[in-house]
């Protein structure tokens, strides 16, 4: 069995890549389908994921990673026997929660959270060196790439502080060693 990691956006993908490269996940790249995590919302819209599924003859568990993952995953008929499980790992309301936690700004954010999305708050308050947060993948690479342990700690802290996930929604922390 292999894991197919499907990240909702390029920033989630970057986070997973950092965790993977620094051996912070419960599995290593050999356990991943085609050795890499993917940026894909739906299998039927992602030829890259289909290529990976076509190459591997065994069973696959899909790990979906994203903010809310409200859209149901459609599994094409040809992969119905191959995909044995689908699990959701959420960082809701938005991935920027990890940056806010990493910057110790969670209490400050909580004061304004009803009026401000994490993305907007992060753009106003967070920077890495001279670069202000701009929702770019490059920012995540710069910010967490050089400090993967801070990323892992932020993910764990998110789970500790954010206990309101639905039953079927797991936490990124559940994938950490």
């Amino acid at each position, binding site marked *: 069995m292999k894991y197919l990691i499907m990240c909702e*956006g*390029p920033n989630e*993908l970057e986070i997973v890549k950092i965790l993977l490269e620094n051996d912070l996940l419960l599995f290593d790249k050999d356990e991943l389908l*085609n*050795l*890499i995590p993917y*940026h*894909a919302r739906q299998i039927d*819209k*992602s*030829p*890259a994921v*289909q*290529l*990976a599924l*076509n*190459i591997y003859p065994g069973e696959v568990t899909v790990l979906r990673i994203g903010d809310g993952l409200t859209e149901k995953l459609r599994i094409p008929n040809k992969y119905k026997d191959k995909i044995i499980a689908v699990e959701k790992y959420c960082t809701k309301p938005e991935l920027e929660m990890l940056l806010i936690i990493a910057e110790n700004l969670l209490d400050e954010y909580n004061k304004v959270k009803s009026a401000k999305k994490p993305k907007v708050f992060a753009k106003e308050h967070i920077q890495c060196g001279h670069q202000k947060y701009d929702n770019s993948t490059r920012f995540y690479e710069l910010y967490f790439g050089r400090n993967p342990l801070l990323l892992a700690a932020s993910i764990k802290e998110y789970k500790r502080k954010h206990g309101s996930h639905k039953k079927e929604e797991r936490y990124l922390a559940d994938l950490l060693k």
Partner: protein
Amino acid sequence: MKLLRVVASYFKNCRDNFMIDLISKSKRTSEDKEYELHEIDEGLYVYNTVAFVGKNASGKTTAVELLDCCYSILGEFRVENKTYQYDHVTLDIIFYHEGMIYRYFTKLEADASLENKAVFTDQHIFQKKYYKSRSKSVYDERDFKEMEDLGSLPEDTSIVFFVLKKKQTRALYFDSEGKGASTYQLLFKALRNYKISTEVLADIIHIFDENICGLQMVDDNNYKLLYKAEQKIVSDTELVHLLSSGTTKGILLYTMAAASLQMGFDLIIDEIENHFHKTLVENLISFYKDKMVNRNKAALLFTTHYCEVLDLFNRRDNIWISKSKEKVYLENMYENFDIRTELLKSNQFYSNAFDTAVNYEELMNLKRKLME
């Protein structure tokens, strides 16, 4: 250096102004940027995979031969040992190199000697700096400036030399014929020139034949084949028979792909599905779409009859349909067809959305004859 566009006239049996454009045209999603495109400069995206499809004798091979011709000029500054006529061919090539856009015009003529090579006449080369703000007008003629007083070269050497300066492999062309017994000489030359490790070769051979652990060159025509429990020294001709022509071709092609991915040059394949298991074709395509493997921005450009391969493309602008009505021409799946994007490209192909179906009446004519 990246080839961006070529416009050719009098090339084989092509229509005049036969054009192949390798800059992305349709909307670029974040998934496309991850899996379908290379950003070679800020805001300038080219494809990592390009397909040419069409009926038999519609000009697919002609299209990739034109690309091969351009890469010969850009890599070796020469055009030689090709299987087509050079006389009167005109080329308008646009390429990107180190922050600049170059436009190169030339006319080819056959060399007056007995050698199979072209000479370059009426050459002009223009340049302009690339700016992100002008990424949508890369081909705009107005801001190009001609490079003058470049100096003299032998007539069989292109003035592109003055820009690129050093011979370098820009692409490898893999035709559908195969190289027969000389494959293995070529293979070991590729290993040496492109610094491919013997471990990579062993892994490639293992994909095609699990019983073989390795292959070593003894001399130009003899090779040592390593099995788990024994070794055999065989000639190149024996080797092709021993391993089969499909395996021989596959090993060479995968080695060329490994070189292309490591060095960042492009790989052009005529009939990618020829001799290959579907999974091996898909795996090759997946290498070029995977930035962890394709770190040096190589591209895979291929022809195929195998329409299911097109379903592995997320975009449509990197797919060309070749057609032949007296002359060969290309249509772009994005620019020339208004198709339903939610349907599989292969299904649309088989339902003749691109006017590429095999003529049913011709098939039945043959069947009627066979039934007589």
